[in-house]
Protein backbone atom coordinates (compact mmCIF):
# COMPACT_ATOMS: atom_id res chain seq x y z
CA UNK A 1 0.00 0.00 0.00
CA UNK A 2 1.95 2.98 -1.25
CA UNK A 3 1.14 6.17 0.50
CA UNK A 4 0.98 9.30 -1.55
CA UNK A 5 1.03 12.61 0.25
CA UNK A 6 -2.58 13.64 0.09
CA UNK A 7 -3.67 17.05 -1.03
CA UNK A 8 -4.85 17.94 2.41
CA UNK A 9 -1.36 17.93 3.92
CA UNK A 10 -1.17 20.26 6.80
CA UNK A 11 2.01 21.95 5.73
CA UNK A 12 4.63 21.65 3.08
CA UNK A 13 5.65 18.16 4.04
CA UNK A 14 8.29 16.56 1.93
CA UNK A 15 7.07 13.04 1.13
CA UNK A 16 9.12 10.52 3.01
CA UNK A 17 9.74 8.74 -0.29
CA UNK A 18 12.19 11.37 -1.36
CA UNK A 19 14.87 10.36 1.07
CA UNK A 20 15.19 7.12 -0.81
CA UNK A 21 16.25 8.98 -3.94
CA UNK A 22 18.88 11.47 -4.84
CA UNK A 23 21.16 10.72 -1.97
CA UNK A 24 24.23 11.06 -4.11
CA UNK A 25 24.45 14.76 -3.53
CA UNK A 26 25.20 14.32 0.12
CA UNK A 27 28.72 14.89 1.25
CA UNK A 28 28.31 12.39 4.03
CA UNK A 29 29.96 9.01 4.05
CA UNK A 30 28.33 6.30 2.03
CA UNK A 31 27.15 4.44 5.11
CA UNK A 32 24.02 6.54 4.67
CA UNK A 33 23.48 5.24 1.15
CA UNK A 34 23.85 1.71 2.34
CA UNK A 35 21.31 2.48 4.98
CA UNK A 36 18.92 3.70 2.31
CA UNK A 37 19.29 0.69 0.10
CA UNK A 38 18.90 -1.58 3.04
CA UNK A 39 15.86 0.41 3.98
CA UNK A 40 14.03 -0.13 0.73
CA UNK A 41 14.80 -3.81 0.76
CA UNK A 42 13.54 -4.05 4.30
CA UNK A 43 10.34 -2.35 3.23
CA UNK A 44 9.64 -5.05 0.66
CA UNK A 45 10.47 -7.76 3.12
CA UNK A 46 8.27 -6.19 5.75
CA UNK A 47 5.31 -6.31 3.36
CA UNK A 48 5.78 -10.04 2.95
CA UNK A 49 6.16 -10.38 6.67
CA UNK A 50 2.92 -8.51 7.25
CA UNK A 51 0.93 -11.49 6.09
CA UNK A 52 2.95 -13.69 8.39
CA UNK A 53 2.26 -11.47 11.40
CA UNK A 54 -1.44 -11.45 10.53
CA UNK A 55 -1.59 -15.19 10.81
CA UNK A 56 0.28 -15.11 14.09
CA UNK A 57 -1.94 -12.34 15.41
CA UNK A 58 -5.16 -14.15 14.66
CA UNK A 59 -3.79 -17.05 16.61
CA UNK A 60 -2.97 -14.79 19.53
CA UNK A 61 -6.45 -13.46 20.09
CA UNK A 62 -7.55 -15.09 23.31
CA UNK A 63 -10.78 -13.52 24.45
CA UNK A 64 -13.78 -13.12 22.16
CA UNK A 65 -12.32 -15.74 19.91
CA UNK A 66 -15.76 -16.53 18.61
CA UNK A 67 -15.67 -13.39 16.49
CA UNK A 68 -16.07 -13.84 12.81
CA UNK A 69 -13.65 -11.48 11.18
CA UNK A 70 -14.92 -10.12 7.92
CA UNK A 71 -12.30 -7.93 6.33
CA UNK A 72 -13.98 -5.21 4.37
CA UNK A 73 -12.55 -5.28 0.88
CA UNK A 74 -13.67 -1.85 -0.18
CA UNK A 75 -11.54 -0.50 -2.99
CA UNK A 76 -11.97 3.09 -1.92
CA UNK A 77 -9.63 2.79 1.03
CA UNK A 78 -6.82 5.02 -0.19
CA UNK A 79 -8.41 8.44 -0.22
CA UNK A 80 -10.20 10.60 2.30
CA UNK A 81 -13.62 9.36 3.38
CA UNK A 82 -15.96 9.77 0.45
CA UNK A 83 -18.25 12.70 1.06
CA UNK A 84 -21.74 11.45 1.65
CA UNK A 85 -25.01 13.19 1.75
CA UNK A 86 -28.35 11.57 2.32
CA UNK A 87 -31.64 12.10 4.00
CA UNK A 88 -31.54 10.65 7.49
CA UNK A 89 -35.08 11.41 8.58
CA UNK A 90 -38.09 12.78 6.81
CA UNK A 91 -41.30 13.74 8.48
CA UNK A 92 -44.40 15.74 7.80
CA UNK A 93 -45.26 18.48 10.25
CA UNK A 94 -48.82 19.24 11.34
CA UNK A 95 -49.07 22.25 9.00
CA UNK A 96 -48.18 20.19 5.97
CA UNK A 97 -44.56 21.19 5.56
CA UNK A 98 -42.11 18.39 5.00
CA UNK A 99 -38.97 18.48 7.06
CA UNK A 100 -35.93 16.53 6.01
CA UNK A 101 -32.86 16.04 8.13
CA UNK A 102 -29.91 15.67 5.86
CA UNK A 103 -26.68 14.08 6.92
CA UNK A 104 -23.58 15.31 5.17
CA UNK A 105 -19.88 14.62 5.52
CA UNK A 106 -17.26 16.51 3.64
CA UNK A 107 -19.49 19.43 2.83
CA UNK A 108 -18.58 22.98 3.73
CA UNK A 109 -19.72 24.31 7.05
CA UNK A 110 -20.48 27.97 7.42
CA UNK A 111 -18.58 29.10 10.52
CA UNK A 112 -21.19 31.70 11.33
CA UNK A 113 -23.91 29.05 11.36
CA UNK A 114 -21.68 26.89 13.52
CA UNK A 115 -21.03 29.68 15.97
CA UNK A 116 -24.77 30.34 16.21
CA UNK A 117 -25.32 26.67 16.95
CA UNK A 118 -22.59 26.68 19.59
CA UNK A 119 -24.29 29.66 21.21
CA UNK A 120 -27.57 27.74 21.26
CA UNK A 121 -26.08 24.84 23.18
CA UNK A 122 -24.32 27.23 25.53
CA UNK A 123 -20.70 26.75 24.57
CA UNK A 124 -18.16 29.53 25.08
CA UNK A 125 -17.25 31.47 22.00
CA UNK A 126 -14.08 30.67 20.12
CA UNK A 127 -12.27 32.78 17.52
CA UNK A 128 -13.84 32.27 14.11
CA UNK A 129 -10.54 31.98 12.28
CA UNK A 130 -9.44 29.17 14.56
CA UNK A 131 -12.79 27.47 14.12
CA UNK A 132 -12.46 27.68 10.36
CA UNK A 133 -8.90 26.32 10.45
CA UNK A 134 -9.98 23.48 12.71
CA UNK A 135 -12.79 22.48 10.37
CA UNK A 136 -10.54 22.66 7.36
CA UNK A 137 -7.90 20.44 8.89
CA UNK A 138 -10.19 17.86 10.47
CA UNK A 139 -10.21 14.39 9.05
CA UNK A 140 -13.97 14.31 8.91
CA UNK A 141 -16.71 16.81 9.60
CA UNK A 142 -20.21 15.40 9.79
CA UNK A 143 -23.19 17.73 9.77
CA UNK A 144 -26.94 17.59 10.04
CA UNK A 145 -29.07 20.16 8.29
CA UNK A 146 -32.80 20.60 8.45
CA UNK A 147 -34.56 21.47 5.21
CA UNK A 148 -38.18 22.50 5.30
CA UNK A 149 -40.38 22.45 2.23
CA UNK A 150 -43.76 24.02 2.46
CA UNK A 151 -46.52 21.96 0.89
CA UNK A 152 -47.17 22.96 -2.68
CA UNK A 153 -44.08 25.12 -3.07
CA UNK A 154 -40.85 24.63 -4.88
CA UNK A 155 -37.87 23.79 -2.73
CA UNK A 156 -36.91 26.93 -0.89
CA UNK A 157 -33.41 27.04 0.44
CA UNK A 158 -34.45 26.81 4.02
CA UNK A 159 -31.40 24.89 5.15
CA UNK A 160 -30.51 25.15 8.80
CA UNK A 161 -27.52 23.65 10.55
CA UNK A 162 -28.75 21.61 13.47
CA UNK A 163 -25.90 19.29 14.34
CA UNK A 164 -22.22 18.68 13.86
CA UNK A 165 -19.41 16.42 14.92
CA UNK A 166 -15.82 16.35 13.77
CA UNK A 167 -12.84 14.07 14.12
CA UNK A 168 -9.12 14.63 13.76
CA UNK A 169 -6.90 11.75 12.82
CA UNK A 170 -3.49 10.74 11.59
CA UNK A 171 -5.26 8.65 8.94
CA UNK A 172 -3.70 5.44 10.15
CA UNK A 173 -4.01 4.62 13.83
CA UNK A 174 -5.52 7.31 16.01
CA UNK A 175 -8.55 9.54 15.87
CA UNK A 176 -10.17 11.90 18.34
CA UNK A 177 -13.75 13.09 18.12
CA UNK A 178 -14.30 16.72 19.10
CA UNK A 179 -17.14 19.20 19.15
CA UNK A 180 -20.24 17.04 19.04
CA UNK A 181 -23.36 19.17 19.22
CA UNK A 182 -27.04 18.99 18.29
CA UNK A 183 -29.53 21.84 18.39
CA UNK A 184 -31.44 21.57 21.69
CA UNK A 185 -34.80 21.56 19.94
CA UNK A 186 -33.72 18.51 17.94
CA UNK A 187 -32.15 16.55 20.75
CA UNK A 188 -33.50 13.26 21.99
CA UNK A 189 -34.29 11.89 18.53
CA UNK A 190 -31.17 9.82 18.01
CA UNK A 191 -29.52 12.41 15.78
CA UNK A 192 -26.37 12.66 17.88
CA UNK A 193 -26.17 8.89 17.89
CA UNK A 194 -26.41 8.83 14.11
CA UNK A 195 -23.63 11.39 13.77
CA UNK A 196 -21.26 9.47 16.01
CA UNK A 197 -22.03 6.10 14.49
CA UNK A 198 -21.35 7.46 11.04
CA UNK A 199 -18.00 8.82 12.11
CA UNK A 200 -17.03 5.60 13.83
CA UNK A 201 -18.02 3.64 10.78
CA UNK A 202 -15.94 5.83 8.50
CA UNK A 203 -12.94 5.58 10.82
CA UNK A 204 -13.11 1.83 11.25
CA UNK A 205 -13.44 1.29 7.54
CA UNK A 206 -10.06 2.96 7.21
CA UNK A 207 -8.66 0.68 9.94
CA UNK A 208 -8.30 3.56 12.34
CA UNK A 209 -8.79 1.69 15.58
CA UNK A 210 -7.94 4.10 18.40
CA UNK A 211 -11.02 6.26 18.58
CA UNK A 212 -10.98 8.59 21.56
CA UNK A 213 -13.02 11.43 22.88
CA UNK A 214 -13.15 13.60 26.01
CA UNK A 215 -16.64 13.58 27.38
CA UNK A 216 -18.24 16.10 29.66
CA UNK A 217 -19.58 14.43 32.79
CA UNK A 218 -23.17 14.94 31.62
CA UNK A 219 -22.70 12.95 28.43
CA UNK A 220 -20.59 10.05 29.63
CA UNK A 221 -23.67 7.80 29.65
CA UNK A 222 -24.57 8.87 26.13
CA UNK A 223 -21.19 7.72 24.85
CA UNK A 224 -21.22 4.62 26.97
CA UNK A 225 -24.36 3.56 25.15
CA UNK A 226 -22.57 4.06 21.87
CA UNK A 227 -19.80 1.67 22.82
CA UNK A 228 -17.27 3.96 24.46
CA UNK A 229 -15.55 2.96 27.66
CA UNK A 230 -14.17 5.45 30.17
CA UNK A 231 -10.47 5.12 31.00
CA UNK A 232 -10.12 1.70 29.40
CA UNK A 233 -7.45 -0.43 31.03
CA UNK A 234 -6.03 2.54 32.84
CA UNK A 235 -5.49 4.75 29.82
CA UNK A 236 -5.95 8.33 30.87
CA UNK A 237 -6.10 11.56 28.99
CA UNK A 238 -3.94 14.37 30.25
CA UNK A 239 -3.89 17.98 29.22
CA UNK A 240 -1.15 20.53 29.07
CA UNK A 241 -1.12 23.25 31.67
CA UNK A 242 0.67 26.37 30.47
CA UNK A 243 3.16 27.67 32.98
CA UNK A 244 3.78 31.31 32.58
Amino acid at each position, binding site marked *: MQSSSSSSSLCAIVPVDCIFNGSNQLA*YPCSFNLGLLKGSRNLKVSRLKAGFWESIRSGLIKNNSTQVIEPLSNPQEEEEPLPEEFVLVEKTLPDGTIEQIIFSSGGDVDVYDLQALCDKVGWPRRPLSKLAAALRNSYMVATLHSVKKSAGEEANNNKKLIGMARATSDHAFNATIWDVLVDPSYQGQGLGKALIEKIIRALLQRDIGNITLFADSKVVEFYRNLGFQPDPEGIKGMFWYPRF
Partner: protein
Amino acid sequence: MAVVGGGYHFSSKLQTLPPAVQILNAGRSSINHHHGHRRRRRPPTPPIFISTNLSHVNPVQLRDLYSSCNHSCHRFPNVFPDGRVEPVDVAKLRIAISHSSVVVSVFASLPENLDGGGGGDWYRKMIPVTPFSGQLVGFGRAVSDDGLTASIYDVMVIPSLRGRGIGRMILQRIIRLLTNKGVYDIAALCSDEEMEFFKACGFGDDILGSTTMMYSRSGNDDDMVKSAGRKLLMVPPLRKS
Protein backbone atom coordinates in the same frame (compact mmCIF):
# COMPACT_ATOMS: atom_id res chain seq x y z
CA MET B 1 31.82 29.05 23.30
CA ALA B 2 33.51 26.01 21.89
CA VAL B 3 33.40 25.78 18.13
CA VAL B 4 33.02 22.23 16.96
CA GLY B 5 34.45 21.13 13.63
CA GLY B 6 32.08 21.13 10.70
CA GLY B 7 30.70 24.57 11.28
CA TYR B 8 28.34 23.72 14.11
CA HIS B 9 28.35 26.37 16.79
CA PHE B 10 27.06 25.94 20.27
CA SER B 11 24.52 28.65 20.71
CA SER B 12 24.68 30.51 23.96
CA LYS B 13 21.25 31.98 23.35
CA LEU B 14 19.16 29.59 25.31
CA GLN B 15 15.77 31.20 24.91
CA THR B 16 15.15 30.84 21.19
CA LEU B 17 16.55 27.77 19.52
CA PRO B 18 16.73 27.21 15.78
CA PRO B 19 14.78 24.24 14.48
CA ALA B 20 17.85 22.00 14.53
CA VAL B 21 20.21 22.51 17.40
CA GLN B 22 23.06 20.44 18.66
CA ILE B 23 23.39 20.15 22.36
CA LEU B 24 26.83 19.33 23.55
CA ASN B 25 27.69 18.05 26.93
CA ALA B 26 31.41 18.03 27.44
CA GLY B 27 31.28 15.53 30.25
CA ARG B 28 33.22 17.15 33.08
CA SER B 29 32.21 20.74 32.55
CA SER B 30 28.44 20.57 32.35
CA ILE B 31 27.05 23.40 30.30
CA ASN B 32 23.76 24.90 31.35
CA HIS B 33 21.03 23.24 29.32
CA HIS B 34 17.88 25.06 28.33
CA HIS B 35 15.65 22.46 29.80
CA GLY B 36 17.20 21.76 33.14
CA HIS B 37 18.54 24.30 35.55
CA ARG B 38 18.11 21.81 38.33
CA ARG B 39 21.38 20.10 39.03
CA ARG B 40 19.96 16.55 39.15
CA ARG B 41 22.32 13.65 39.34
CA ARG B 42 21.90 12.03 35.99
CA PRO B 43 24.41 10.50 33.62
CA PRO B 44 25.68 12.90 30.98
CA THR B 45 23.69 13.10 27.78
CA PRO B 46 25.59 12.11 24.66
CA PRO B 47 25.65 14.67 21.87
CA ILE B 48 22.24 14.68 20.23
CA PHE B 49 20.61 16.29 17.25
CA ILE B 50 16.98 17.19 17.59
CA SER B 51 15.02 17.72 14.43
CA THR B 52 11.49 18.62 13.54
CA ASN B 53 12.08 18.09 9.86
CA LEU B 54 9.90 15.37 8.42
CA SER B 55 12.42 14.46 5.74
CA HIS B 56 14.84 13.30 8.43
CA VAL B 57 12.51 10.50 9.39
CA ASN B 58 13.28 7.11 7.96
CA PRO B 59 10.19 4.92 8.42
CA VAL B 60 12.14 1.71 8.73
CA GLN B 61 14.49 3.19 11.33
CA LEU B 62 11.42 4.48 13.09
CA ARG B 63 9.80 1.08 13.07
CA ASP B 64 12.92 -0.32 14.70
CA LEU B 65 12.78 2.40 17.33
CA TYR B 66 9.21 1.42 18.12
CA SER B 67 10.37 -2.16 18.55
CA SER B 68 13.32 -1.29 20.78
CA CYS B 69 11.07 0.80 22.98
CA ASN B 70 8.45 -1.95 22.88
CA HIS B 71 5.87 0.62 21.88
CA SER B 72 2.91 0.04 19.65
CA CYS B 73 0.72 2.37 17.68
CA HIS B 74 -2.30 0.39 18.74
CA ARG B 75 -3.61 1.27 22.13
CA PHE B 76 -4.16 -2.38 22.94
CA PRO B 77 -1.56 -4.24 20.97
CA ASN B 78 -1.09 -7.94 20.55
CA VAL B 79 1.68 -9.06 22.87
CA PHE B 80 3.84 -12.08 22.24
CA PRO B 81 4.47 -14.50 25.09
CA ASP B 82 7.87 -12.96 25.80
CA GLY B 83 6.28 -9.55 26.33
CA ARG B 84 7.21 -7.93 23.03
CA VAL B 85 4.52 -6.10 21.14
CA GLU B 86 3.87 -6.83 17.52
CA PRO B 87 5.97 -4.71 15.17
CA VAL B 88 4.45 -1.64 13.59
CA ASP B 89 3.32 -1.74 9.99
CA VAL B 90 5.77 0.50 8.12
CA ALA B 91 3.32 1.56 5.44
CA LYS B 92 0.75 2.68 8.00
CA LEU B 93 3.49 4.40 9.96
CA ARG B 94 4.42 6.47 6.94
CA ILE B 95 0.83 7.53 6.50
CA ALA B 96 0.54 8.38 10.16
CA ILE B 97 3.63 10.58 10.29
CA SER B 98 2.82 12.30 7.03
CA HIS B 99 -0.45 13.39 8.58
CA SER B 100 0.99 14.47 11.90
CA SER B 101 1.29 18.22 12.42
CA VAL B 102 4.42 17.97 14.49
CA VAL B 103 7.11 15.32 14.25
CA VAL B 104 10.19 15.45 16.48
CA SER B 105 13.11 13.08 16.10
CA VAL B 106 16.24 12.87 18.18
CA PHE B 107 19.48 11.42 16.85
CA ALA B 108 22.61 10.53 18.72
CA SER B 109 25.84 8.82 17.90
CA LEU B 110 26.04 5.94 20.26
CA PRO B 111 29.38 4.47 21.25
CA GLU B 112 29.52 0.71 21.57
CA ASN B 113 30.04 0.87 25.28
CA LEU B 114 27.62 3.22 26.91
CA ASP B 115 29.62 4.14 29.98
CA GLY B 116 29.65 7.73 28.71
CA GLY B 117 32.32 10.26 29.53
CA GLY B 118 35.12 7.78 29.22
CA GLY B 119 38.46 9.21 28.25
CA GLY B 120 38.52 7.31 25.00
CA ASP B 121 35.53 8.78 23.25
CA TRP B 122 36.15 12.49 23.70
CA TYR B 123 36.54 12.64 19.96
CA ARG B 124 33.07 11.29 19.49
CA LYS B 125 31.75 14.36 21.19
CA MET B 126 33.66 16.56 18.77
CA ILE B 127 32.18 15.02 15.66
CA PRO B 128 28.80 16.65 14.99
CA VAL B 129 25.82 14.38 15.06
CA THR B 130 23.61 14.56 12.02
CA PRO B 131 20.38 12.79 11.16
CA PHE B 132 22.36 10.82 8.61
CA SER B 133 25.29 9.70 10.70
CA GLY B 134 23.49 9.36 14.01
CA GLN B 135 21.08 6.76 15.21
CA LEU B 136 17.44 7.53 15.89
CA VAL B 137 17.06 7.39 19.64
CA GLY B 138 13.95 9.40 20.39
CA PHE B 139 10.70 10.39 18.75
CA GLY B 140 7.42 12.14 19.36
CA ARG B 141 4.55 13.33 17.24
CA ALA B 142 1.33 15.27 17.52
CA VAL B 143 -1.84 15.29 15.44
CA SER B 144 -3.63 18.60 15.30
CA ASP B 145 -6.26 20.53 13.44
CA ASP B 146 -3.93 23.56 13.51
CA GLY B 147 -6.59 25.69 15.03
CA LEU B 148 -8.02 24.52 18.31
CA THR B 149 -6.82 21.13 19.51
CA ALA B 150 -3.95 18.69 19.35
CA SER B 151 -3.19 15.18 20.59
CA ILE B 152 0.30 13.94 21.34
CA TYR B 153 1.19 10.34 20.50
CA ASP B 154 4.14 7.99 20.54
CA VAL B 155 6.69 9.84 22.64
CA MET B 156 9.57 7.44 23.16
CA VAL B 157 13.28 7.24 23.94
CA ILE B 158 15.39 4.11 23.74
CA PRO B 159 15.74 2.44 27.13
CA SER B 160 19.49 3.04 27.45
CA LEU B 161 19.12 6.81 27.14
CA ARG B 162 16.16 7.33 29.39
CA GLY B 163 16.22 9.51 32.45
CA ARG B 164 18.44 12.14 30.81
CA GLY B 165 15.89 14.70 29.81
CA ILE B 166 15.54 13.68 26.16
CA GLY B 167 11.87 12.77 26.47
CA ARG B 168 11.14 16.03 28.21
CA MET B 169 12.98 17.89 25.45
CA ILE B 170 10.90 16.15 22.81
CA LEU B 171 7.69 17.00 24.59
CA GLN B 172 8.63 20.62 25.12
CA ARG B 173 9.56 20.98 21.47
CA ILE B 174 6.20 19.56 20.43
CA ILE B 175 4.37 21.88 22.77
CA ARG B 176 6.30 24.91 21.58
CA LEU B 177 5.54 24.17 17.94
CA LEU B 178 1.88 23.74 18.73
CA THR B 179 1.61 26.92 20.77
CA ASN B 180 3.39 28.81 18.00
CA LYS B 181 0.46 27.87 15.80
CA GLY B 182 -1.92 29.09 18.44
CA VAL B 183 -3.06 25.68 19.63
CA TYR B 184 -3.29 25.55 23.40
CA ASP B 185 -5.66 22.65 23.92
CA ILE B 186 -3.10 19.85 23.93
CA ALA B 187 -4.04 16.36 25.03
CA ALA B 188 -2.02 13.21 25.51
CA LEU B 189 -3.25 9.69 26.11
CA CYS B 190 -1.09 7.79 28.51
CA SER B 191 -0.90 4.54 30.36
CA ASP B 192 0.03 4.27 34.02
CA GLU B 193 3.77 4.13 33.36
CA GLU B 194 3.71 7.18 31.12
CA MET B 195 1.57 9.21 33.49
CA GLU B 196 4.47 10.13 35.76
CA PHE B 197 6.48 11.35 32.80
CA PHE B 198 3.68 13.56 31.51
CA LYS B 199 2.92 14.90 34.96
CA ALA B 200 6.54 15.90 35.38
CA CYS B 201 6.37 17.74 32.07
CA GLY B 202 3.38 19.84 33.03
CA PHE B 203 0.38 17.74 32.08
CA GLY B 204 -2.53 17.11 34.35
CA ASP B 205 -6.16 16.15 34.48
CA ASP B 206 -8.55 18.16 32.41
CA ILE B 207 -9.51 21.50 33.95
CA LEU B 208 -13.06 20.99 32.78
CA GLY B 209 -13.21 17.55 34.33
CA SER B 210 -13.91 15.62 31.15
CA THR B 211 -13.68 11.84 31.01
CA THR B 212 -11.44 10.15 28.49
CA MET B 213 -13.33 7.50 26.58
CA MET B 214 -12.33 5.08 23.88
CA TYR B 215 -14.45 3.11 21.48
CA SER B 216 -14.22 -0.49 22.56
CA ARG B 217 -17.45 -2.16 21.59
CA SER B 218 -16.80 -5.64 20.30
CA GLY B 219 -19.23 -7.32 18.01
CA ASN B 220 -20.75 -10.74 17.85
CA ASP B 221 -21.09 -13.20 15.03
CA ASP B 222 -23.59 -11.17 13.03
CA ASP B 223 -21.65 -7.96 13.06
CA MET B 224 -18.81 -6.65 11.02
CA VAL B 225 -15.71 -6.24 13.07
CA LYS B 226 -12.38 -4.55 12.57
CA SER B 227 -9.24 -5.47 14.44
CA ALA B 228 -7.23 -2.84 16.27
CA GLY B 229 -4.32 -4.52 17.98
CA ARG B 230 -5.86 -7.22 20.09
CA LYS B 231 -9.28 -5.61 20.18
CA LEU B 232 -11.97 -6.50 17.71
CA LEU B 233 -14.19 -3.50 17.28
CA MET B 234 -17.73 -3.65 16.02
CA VAL B 235 -18.48 -1.52 13.00
CA PRO B 236 -21.80 0.24 13.58
CA PRO B 237 -24.38 -1.08 11.12
CA LEU B 238 -25.63 1.01 8.28
CA ARG B 239 -29.12 2.21 8.96
CA LYS B 240 -31.11 4.06 6.38
CA SER B 241 -34.51 5.33 7.33
